[in-house]
């Protein structure tokens, strides 16, 4: 299976700061998706970026994709306490069965 690997595993910041997390994958993809998981809940889709796109925005979220490095980053600007959650990437496409990794655990202190 193709697992997206998130980095760092844990991130702790103050409200108002920006949070950046990264994802690396192994093979060619059709798209890469980011999801959020609040404690004890199912994952919620945040944003999808296609393999021919380099950057995408959605509200306070900015996602970049570098297919040559097989990596993506998720930037959350002006973070809020409510952004506290785990964030997962999902690399879809290629010959592997895609799956999720361990995620980045983000804590935003008020």
């Amino acid at each position, binding site marked *: 299976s193709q697992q997206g690997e998130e980095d760092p595993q844990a991130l702790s910041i103050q409200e108002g700061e920006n949070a950046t997390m990264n994802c690396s994958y192994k093979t060619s993809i059709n*798209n890469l*998706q980011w999801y959020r998981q609040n404690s004890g809940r*199912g*994952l919620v*889709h945040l944003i999808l970026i296609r393999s021919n796109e380099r950057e995408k925005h959605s509200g306070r979220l900015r996602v970049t994709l570098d297919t040559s490095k097989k990596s993506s980053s998720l930037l959350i600007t002006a973070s809020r306490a409510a952004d506290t959650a785990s964030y997962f990437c999902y690399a879809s496409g290629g010959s592997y069965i895609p*799956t*999720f990794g*361990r995620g980045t655990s983000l804590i935003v202190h008020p």
Partner: protein
Amino acid sequence: DTAVSQTPKYLVTQMGNDKSIKCEQNLGHDTMYWYKQDSKKFLKIMFSYNNKELIINETVPNRFSPKSPDKAHLNLHINSLELGDSAVYFCASSQGRASEQFFGPGTRLTVL
């Protein structure tokens, strides 16, 4: 209206028992999934089911078997439960394998 629902939400059972978890989606999606999330938060795919094509993660023990009576349902049956099966199991659905997935609330399974 719940898009993806799972029952039960909590399941506590003894080793060796057989149990089932049910999943239903009302989104009209053609693809459904089962994931296992362990205590270290790894979210591992177990099965995906697309228009009657079942794709199995080869690391899943054959004690686990998915059953799909129709496109809207994908149930998970587990035989001879073991302590290591304790985890949270998530069902999800999507329209096509490359699209956004919608997740259920999860079923927390505890094997004693």
